[in-house]
């Protein structure tokens, strides 16, 4: 029950951040593929950097354990990503 409620709150922060970055808008997403607006990349890379530093700092201090890391299977990741990119450029999400 706690986990469910917590997930809802996490989702709230997630949706809030994305909307504020303007990533709910079609042109923001598709323009990263046209190189006219790199907001998606700036947003993604900032998230990566912040979460990376925070997670590993807490882990090194022994406060948290790392969860299961998404598995790598090259062909699946590659083909899935290729299909995903077509959908992303078309739909704009």
């Amino acid at each position: 029950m706690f986990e469910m409620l917590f997930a809802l709150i996490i989702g709230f922060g997630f949706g809030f951040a994305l909307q504020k970055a303007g990533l709910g808008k079609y042109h923001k997403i598709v323009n990263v593929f046209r190189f006219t607006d790199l907001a998606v990349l700036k947003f993604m890379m900032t998230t990566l950097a912040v979460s990376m530093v925070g997670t590993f700092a807490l882990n090194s201090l022994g406060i948290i354990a790392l969860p299961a890391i998404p598995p790598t299977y090259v062909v699946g990741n590659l083909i899935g990503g290729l299909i995903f990119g077509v959908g992303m450029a078309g739909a704009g999400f």
Partner: protein
Amino acid sequence: MMKLLQQKEWSPYLAGTLLGLVYIVSIAVAGIIPGASGAFENIGGLIAQAIYPDLAKNTYFQFVMPPGITTAVMILLGIFIGAFVSAKLSGDFKLQVVSDPQWKRVFGAAVWKRWLVLFLGGILLEFGAGIAGGCTSGLAIGGGLFLAPSAFIFIAAMFISGIPTAWLMYRRKY
């Protein structure tokens, strides 16, 4: 503070920092890597159970993505609420059938065209995320922060196919 919350658009660096903090809290408190695409598969499994139970018994739904109201579904629900609150606060919320000015300028205001591309694109998005094992949030960021190779293969592939797709759609306007 209130003024900041009412802004229509934040710098991507500020919004990205907020999302980074959300990831840290989520991983630290519950060990959950936030993702958006898995929820659709959980819900899809529920629908399969209801209308075609044999399908829900296949390997994928049994072992990879079990049907049910999971934490992923709750995150998805939270995303809607969070985005809605954010849009309402800034007065950015409107109900529209074809919402994007750039789309209208380039492809016209025809509703069927936008909805068809949106629908087909949505299928491809979810299908691709299913094969790759996650989407931009769960795999690219959630894996990338652990420097998982899968995340970087995925990000590269996403751009390898996204760029030509956008080019084919825009052609001279690219």
